[in-house]
């Protein structure tokens, strides 16, 4: 018996019971569709998150105060540290250093006000963080030196205060009551893994130090953003930064009082989290595929009982065990294969719809259906059909011909 004939025969006997076969297939369809949809949505979320991390800038390193827990009284990161890192002889792998002071403040204009994050930044912040202005200009050295009262507004802040995102240069807003002239509007970035980059304002670091965000010492900053000269140089840069800080802070060996994180660290963490999420979602969906498989087994058992006489006849005519086994396994595999194919289509449809809904709600998840997902689902569903078809088929194959022929 060749496979093609068995396939046609399986189609024929399945189509004899269309409703029953259809319902059995439906179980597999739902299972496969759920797996496909969940995995592709998970992948889409991963792409979105990693994309937004990459959007922060390129080849970035983050330097924070505080290291391992045993270290007491970690020394703060200072502007002096930043200057040392910017020295090309001390740290040849470092391209730019952007110190940041971070705080919150009430920004108001006329009757409108909003509580937002206020960052004191240097001109290096623009290229390092990959931010630009849509109108006006970025903070420059002159503003820094002159401790100018100028501010760059995120688009959301601009919307809240003025109800528009353009034509605002030269207006005056108040931050914690102090007047600041609007220097420019920041490019819209969308949500990110850390904070909403559109809901913030930037002022010169020097202005922040003296007037808004006061720290215990003058030259202390909250964070350094460091850009390495190239992607390959990131580990090297990390090492150079650590060396500089160790000697400047005079730390004991093995007790760093600072932390250097690379963009890759954030990416890895995000990938791990979304990967677990995807597996978790896919696992739950796989359970429904399992239930579909049990449906196949159930229907195949019924079918074997119904066709006992037919099996007896086939055996009388010379069918060996393997012939009967193949016949019933083909039927269950056809059920699951057809279910799998329809399920892939449905799953794709679901993920597209979810993507659309997410896009409509400003949370861009772009569901990604890979060939591997499709192959996996097809393979898995066929395997389910084979596995759950095996027991009924084996039962059919082991029937005694005499008994089976006598069965009413």
């Amino acid at each position, binding site marked *: *018996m*060749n496979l093609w004939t068995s396939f046609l025969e399986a189609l*024929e006997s399945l189509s004899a019971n269309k409703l029953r076969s259809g319902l059995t297939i439906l179980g597999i369809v739902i299972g496969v569709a759920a797996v496909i949809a969940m995995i592709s949505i998970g992948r889409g979320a991963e792409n979105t998150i990693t994309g937004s991390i990459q959007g922060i800038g390129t080849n970035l390193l983050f330097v924070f105060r505080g290291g391992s827990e045993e270290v007491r009284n970690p020394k703060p990161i200072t502007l002096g540290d930043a200057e040392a890192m910017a020295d090309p002889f001390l740290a040849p792998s470092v391209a730019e250093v952007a110190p940041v002071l971070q705080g919150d403040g009430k920004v108001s204009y006329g009757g409108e006000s909003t509580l937002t994050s206020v960052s004191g930044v240097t001109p290096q912040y623009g290229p390092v963080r990959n931010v630009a202005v849509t109108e006006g200009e970025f903070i420059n050295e002159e503003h820094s030196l002159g401790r100018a009262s100028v501010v760059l507004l995120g688009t959301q802040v601009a919307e809240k205060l003025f109800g528009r995102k353009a034509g605002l240069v030269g207006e005056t807003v108040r931050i914690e009551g102090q007047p600041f002239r609007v220097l420019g509007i920041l490019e819209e970035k969308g949500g990110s893994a850390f904070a909403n980059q559109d809901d913030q304002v930037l002022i010169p670091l020097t202005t922040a130090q003296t007037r808004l965000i006061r720290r215990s010492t003058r030259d202390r900053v909250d964070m350094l953003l460091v850009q390495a000269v190239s992607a390959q140089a990131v580990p090297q840069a990390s090492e150079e930064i650590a060396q500089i800080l160790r000697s400047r802070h005079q730390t004991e060996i093995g007790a760093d009082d600072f932390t250097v994180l690379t963009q890759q660290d954030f990416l890895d963490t995000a990938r791990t989290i979304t990967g677990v999420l995807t597996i978790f979602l896919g696992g739950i969906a796989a359970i429904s595929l399992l239930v579909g498989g049990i449906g196949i087994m159930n229907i195949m058992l019924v079918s074997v009982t119904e066709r006992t006489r037919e099996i007896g006849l086939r055996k*009388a005519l*010379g069918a*060996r065990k393997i012939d009967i086994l193949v016949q019933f396994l083909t039927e269950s595999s056809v059920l699951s294969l057809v279910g799998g194919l329809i399920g892939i289509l449905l799953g794709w449809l679901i993920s597209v719809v979810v993507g659309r809904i997410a896009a409509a709600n400003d949370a861009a998840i772009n569901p990604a259906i890979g060939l591997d997902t499709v192959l996996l689902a097809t393979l898995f569903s066929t395997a389910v059909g084979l596995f759950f078809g095996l027991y009924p088929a084996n039962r059919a194959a082991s029937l005694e011909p005499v008994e089976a022929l006598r069965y009413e």
Partner: protein
Amino acid sequence: MSDWVIEAENLTKIYKMGDIEVHALCGLSLQIAQGEIVSIMGPSGSGKSTLMNIIGCLDRPTSGEYILDSERVSDLSDDQLASIRNRKVGFVFQSFNLLPRATALANVELPMRYAGVGRGRRERARAALESVGLGDRIHHRPNELSGGQQQRVAIARALVNEPAIILADEPTGNLDSRSGEEIMQLLLSLNRQRGTTLIIVTHDPDVAVHTQRSIRIRDGVVEDGS
């Protein structure tokens, strides 16, 4: 080599029903010659069906020797028995036992599929159907055929692999007397044309009169006619 197509020596068959042992055959011996037409008769419970199952290689004797067409069958595996049935035995059942969803042609092709015949299956099946007078009905399904026609399809299916014996179990039992008579004539003419040994299990004396020899079974042994 003997002329016997069937040689059975001292067959016994014991069924275990719980604790009770049922002796269906008690040392039955029997020979049937090549080309012979034989009827096997006996009241119900005589062991007639058991004998038929063993002759048709559907079942094994508990003890004794059975040789079919010079092949020792008594202790073969299930799959070897299936192969013997496929090549050497053509079955004709009382209730026809056709696959309801398959055409006459597909039904007749079935034994050849299990025999592994690849090419020429369709032509051979068509020829077999023509030889039973159904050349114009090959694409009909069983429910589109009369009882007599269905039994003809079953006979075509039985002879398509050119078996050594055709084993018919009450072949006219479900037919009216006229179609029954036609089926009997068909079986007899196949025997004449092809020399196929014909064994008919029946309790109908009208059927038995057509056969050259009548074997009567009673209480698991041959009573008369061996």
